[in-house]
């Protein structure tokens, strides 16, 4: 294994292991999403959702749950001196970015593994749309993780940590949410899944992932300098 590959694997394994042991983010994210579904049930006063309403409820909930995890992504690095250790280590700093993005994608997938079935049980009459939804979820998670990691690494070094992530991240992911809800809406429509413009939206999602992945990779170096 090349040094950068083993560094990547080490950082990722460290993150996953510490999350498994402390369970700091994931249970909170899952609980938050379930509670939000309950609030939506009473706020909208509907017991079953379809189409754009279903897509909106699902994505608003997942986005805000993701913000919880993104907020905490670099807290350990800052509090336990992990940033200094990475700076000292003879590795490319962008590896930290890559490892954190992958860790965040794994968190988000784990969150969706819990939240989406519960969403289906609560609100959907027909679960046939869930299978193609997996592709939308994966692509959106990648984009969310790329921007989220970038913003989180900046916010954690500021005075207004928990405030900055939602403040800056939400406008930044608006295009991502437009594409995600655009792709999800026909999948959850009343008469079973439809696929109008599905491929186009997936392409927008992929483009967003690519652009923000590259930007994050390119600028992350500057965020670790001291």
């Amino acid at each position: 294994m090349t040094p950068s590959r083993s560094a990547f694997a080490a950082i990722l394994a460290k993150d996953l292991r510490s999350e498994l042991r402390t369970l700091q983010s994931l249970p909170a994210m899952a609980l938050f999403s379930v509670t939000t579904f309950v609030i939506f049930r009473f706020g909208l006063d509907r017991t079953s959702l379809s189409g754009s309403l279903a897509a909106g409820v699902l994505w608003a909930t997942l986005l805000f749950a993701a913000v919880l995890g993104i907020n905490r992504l670099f807290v350990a690095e800052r509090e336990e001196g992990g940033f200094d250790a990475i700076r000292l280590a003879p590795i490319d700093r962008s590896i930290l970015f890559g490892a954190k993005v992958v860790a965040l994608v794994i968190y988000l997938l784990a969150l969706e593994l819990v939240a989406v079935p519960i969403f289906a049980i609560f609100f959907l009459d027909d679960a046939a749309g869930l299978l193609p939804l997996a592709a939308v979820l994966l692509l959106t998670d990648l984009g969310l993780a790329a921007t989220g990691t970038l913003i989180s690494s900046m916010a954690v070094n500021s005075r207004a940590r928990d405030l900055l992530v939602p403040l800056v991240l939400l406008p930044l992911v608006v295009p991502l949410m437009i594409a995600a809800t655009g792709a999800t809406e026909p999948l959850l429509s009343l008469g079973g899944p439809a696929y109008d413009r599905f491929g186009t939206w997936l392409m927008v999602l992929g483009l967003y992932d690519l652009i923000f992945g590259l930007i994050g990779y390119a600028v992350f170096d500057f965020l670790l300098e001291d």
Partner: protein
Amino acid sequence: MYGKGLKPLSIATVAMLALSLSLVFFYAPLDADQGFIQKIFYIHVPLAIVALIGFIAGGVFAILHLRSDDRKWDAYSYVAIHISVIFGVAVLITGAIWAKASWGHWWVWDEPTLVSFLIVFLLYATYYPFRYAIEDRDRQARYASVFAVTAGAFVPLNFMAVRMAESLVHPRTFATAEGGMPGEMMLTVLCMLVAIGLLWTTLVKFELTAKSASGQVKRLRRALDAPVSGGSSRIAPEVG
């Protein structure tokens, strides 16, 4: 040194604005179905274009700052975004007036250009709280530049996504097929675009000059051991 050329630039801006405004009111034909209120278009559209270009310019300056580590470029980036945000407020207000006059509503949601401009504006509005939340000066400059680069790339992507999501009602200003405009109108818009672009450049130059002057005063005061007054400059970047 930032003040150099400020006077001719200001005069050129005023002259160009006067010329363009007289073109707007005396030369451009009255729109057939919108009437006089359509004149606001000559201010609204160039303001929007200049604000968006200004945001992207802020991103380009930020790249220069990250590459050269020269604080001057951070100040350029800050000022470019600052003036563009102010222009953005004007765009949203003039756009709302125009929308009320021609569509009957202050705000229309299925309008890609409006919505995407609002999103871009909201993103850049977070530049200030983001920047001021970071205390260390060097880190603040670096992080602000990273933000400016990211947001600069976000601008075109956002326009694409919003346009795809919405119907197409907004007049395409420079559409060549039907919906294009007569030559007199085109000429007026282009003149106005140049005038607003000059206005933007002048304002940017003014702010940079002011910043560099206050930075100089502060350094001189420090050299004289006099108390440095005014805590407000702590926030904004300085230029040498």
